[in-house]
């Protein structure tokens, strides 16, 4: 999960794997909010430097591994 130099780390949610456990919303409230049905909404992207460790913890703690940290913005709409 180490970012390559020169890229900006982005968070991405796999909507197929996400079952609204809501752990990521607790782990990274600065960037992830909740929609009316408990599913996570990425309000901010990319991940700023001071939140990177928290982002990694959030990714590791997702029960279904739906939250991903990627090197660049491959999914602009999220």
């Amino acid at each position: 999960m180490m970012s390559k130099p020169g890229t900006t780390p982005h968070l991405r949610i796999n909507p197929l794997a996400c079952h609204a456990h809501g752990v990521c919303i607790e782990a990274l409230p600065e960037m992830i909010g909740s929609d009316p049905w408990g599913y996570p909404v990425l309000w901010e992207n990319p991940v700023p430097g001071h939140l990177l460790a928290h982002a990694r913890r959030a990714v590791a703690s997702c029960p279904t591994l739906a939250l991903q940290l990627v090197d660049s913005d491959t999914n602009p709409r999220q």
Partner: protein
Amino acid sequence: MNRRDAYEESLTVPATVPVQVAVGGLLAGVDGRPDLTGHLLRHGELPDQSAAQLLDVVERSGLAGRGGAGFPTGRKMRAVIAAAAGGGRSVRQAGPVVVANGCEGEPASSKDKTLLVLAPHLVLDGITLAARAVGAAQTYLCLHEDDHEAIRAVQYALGERRAAGIDSARVQVTLVPHRYVASEESALVRLLNGGPALPAFTPPRPFERGVGGRATLVNNVETLAHLALIARHGPDWFRSQGAPDAPGTTLVTVTGAVAAPGVYEIPLGITGRDLLDLAGGPTGPVQAVLAGGYFGAWLPAARAMAARITPAGLTQAGAALGAGIFIAFPAGSCGLAETARVARYLAGQSAGQCGPCINGLPSLAAGLEALALRGDRRAPEHLAKIAPYVTGRGACRLPDGATRLIGSALTVFAPDVRAHLAHGPCPGAGHAPLLPIPTTATSGKAR
């Protein structure tokens, strides 16, 4: 003069392209025999250009996908070739795959089925040529499992070609459950890989990793049919019709309040008014046009008439070309009630994989129904609150399209919204439904 009229007056109407069905187009001469002999008489033999020549011809022609996304076909082919070359050894050895998409998910569209029944050999030619261009040895043609006419026509055509020893590529006909989302690119790939016909999470997109992990070119059958003609007549011929920014002809399905609804082949760039006139003209006053099907948007009549029928022109007008669907909506019908029915249908067509869609679409449908059928005062606020959470958060574009459609209905039929809120549902809300919704549609979720 109210604000809406003033806005419409301010639109400039660009120069129109003369309306004519192109000579040697897809549907030219199809009143003749659709069989192999008739096809060869009309169009001649399958050209034997090399892959490099084909790629060059496609790129210079400016052909773009006719399945709804409108992606430049030449660029897509190049991307598939690059992905196939860059893969692991087994992937490189196996080569890319070509998938022809003949599944028409939009209920209001009939163009692909019409093409397959009237000119199957053009489609099959296109598949062969596309396979040659990208170096694919394996090709598939996907059809809805209940599209019996098209299936019969294709099987017959394949039999003729086998007997004549024409095709180098084996085309495997694959039947797909009839669902709105089943014909999405990644859903077809998933089905061909042995899974359910439901959208997958992308990236990787099919062109990078698709059927069997190989680079996969997915093209609409109409796109491939155009390819068959471009290979024969050249890119300049293709560009001689249509508009500079949208060359060639395209098939459209025109229905609703027109005298002669049906599938038409038109040069891109004509206006909406030209299009409706081609379909026999409106049968009465038209209040709005649904452009792009249920994945498109409503347009006020005046704006629709003035719009250029090109991807850019319709996007600029606020809708989309999509799969070339135009429904003339008569005055006296209730756009809100009709859209509410469509919203409920789309909610039922959810693949059931992503929370925002599973929850959001029924919620939007319920809100629109409350507005259209009961004049519920809370409905507009509810819709405004929910909509931003529905769009852009699923694996496929179904929720995005539904949200856009509903949003456009609220904008275009704004006077109706006010009237419903003030006085309750209008008489039009009780009219017989106009927009087609398949009654035998398979539910969106996997069986």
